[in-house]
């Protein structure tokens, strides 16, 4: 029984457990897992081994180590510069530094404010989509199971969206990833329609992102009480519109918090 197991199975099993299978293979593997009891036993066993390793007591770094390292690195810096700096240390320079800091941080705040501009949001969402397509896989967590994707988001983000499976409507759930828009990590849900990938990024509610085309990708946005959704895909905009309808119909219930 064991010897008959193919090694490619073993690699797939490992990759699936690690969330590293490409979307199609993951879906296929889940189907096999549901029908193959021996495979299921090996899956459970592997997961229990992973759990055992993960729950090992972790060594804590002695607190003094960081101080030691800082001291060592200080010694690497040219010492005369340090001395000079120390001598010049005064309230005057302190005040100048504070003023300078204030200028820097106000200009940083202006940059952050610019992120709020909706064109910028749209283009950042598209960038996330493109980056996802360039990566070996467009998601951080691969699963066609909404009960896997949703908790994955919940564990990472303060607000996590509903993750409906829209396979019946022609949009198969691929998985999810975390994108960073402005400086906020946000949930992006991935769907597949024929050979096309749809990234659905969920932003704070109440933002308006106009329908547009960026770098050849169609952008469509809508909001409900919980989120502003931005869908990006190379699908024609009519298909994105039916995606919106399917998603809105499937995820109407407000999140209970």
């Amino acid at each position, binding site marked *: *029984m*064991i*010897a008959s*197991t193919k*090694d*490619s199975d*073993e*690699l797939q*099993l*490992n*990759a699936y457990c*690690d*969330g*590293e299978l490409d979307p199609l293979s993951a879906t296929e593997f889940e189907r096999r897992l549901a029908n193959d009891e*021996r495979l299921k*036993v*090996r899956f*459970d*066993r*592997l997961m*229990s*081994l*992973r759990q*055992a*390793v*993960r*729950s*090992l*007591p*972790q*060594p*804590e*770094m*002695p607190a003094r*180590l*960081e101080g*030691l*390292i800082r001291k*060592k*690195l200080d010694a*690497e*810096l*040219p010492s005369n*510069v340090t001395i000079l700096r120390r001598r010049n240390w005064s309230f005057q320079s302190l005040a100048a530094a504070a003023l300078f800091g204030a200028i820097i941080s106000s200009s940083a705040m202006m940059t952050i404010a610019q992120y709020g501009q909706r064109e910028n949001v749209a283009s950042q969402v598209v960038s996330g989509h493109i980056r996802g397509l360039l990566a*070996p896989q467009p998601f*951080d967590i691969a699963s066609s199971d909404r009960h896997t994707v949703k908790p994955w988001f919940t564990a990472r983000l303060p607000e996590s969206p509903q993750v409906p499976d829209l396979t019946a409507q022609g949009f198969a759930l691929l998985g999810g990833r975390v994108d960073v828009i402005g400086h906020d990590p946000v949930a992006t849900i991935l769907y597949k329609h024929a050979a096309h990938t749809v990234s659905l990024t969920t932003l704070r509610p109440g933002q308006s992102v106009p329908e547009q085309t960026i770098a050849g990708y169609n952008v469509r946005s809508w909001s409900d009480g919980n989120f502003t959704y931005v869908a990006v895909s190379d699908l024609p905009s009519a298909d994105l519109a039916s995606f919106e309808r399917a998603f809105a119909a499937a995820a109407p219930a407000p999140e209970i918090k």
Partner: protein
Amino acid sequence: MSVPIVQNKDDRAAFDEVFLPHLHEAYRLAQWLAGSSSDAEDIVQESALRAFRGIKTFGAVNARAWSLAIVRNTAFSWLAKNKPKTLVSINDLSPAEQRDLESEGPRGERVETPEESALLKANAEEVQKALAQLPAQFREVIVLREINQMNYRDIAEITNVPIGTVMSRLSRGRQLLMAHLGDRR
């Protein structure tokens, strides 16, 4: 070394931003690779120094992988120099196993495990021991995956092997672990 590279304050600031945030993780990795806390301290200190001196080589892509790669490489060179006997390496394996590991995927048989029970009944001490006994190439991928929770791509970057090799090492390493733990009962 003829002319020492002079580090300036910018380098120090870059170091603080790139390497320091991963110090705890660096220590953890070093500890698992070296198997001793005092060795881990030495390794982390040396890694920090190396990272600082090489901070200009940081490509501004993945600070965590860059930092841990330095720790990993420092750990192996440190161990080779100071504790050559503790470093169970791939070179201690049979030629067939070695070929297997360096190939894109395992071609040999699966490691036979005495019983295929679904749940592993091993306590932490046994797991720790079994992990410590694995050859370094298996141990590092398992530690990077489970303890540092890196994805395959980052593990490949840190260990400087193709992703296919990471996959086969992980798979084989886990089988070996299970076999070890099975033998123990």
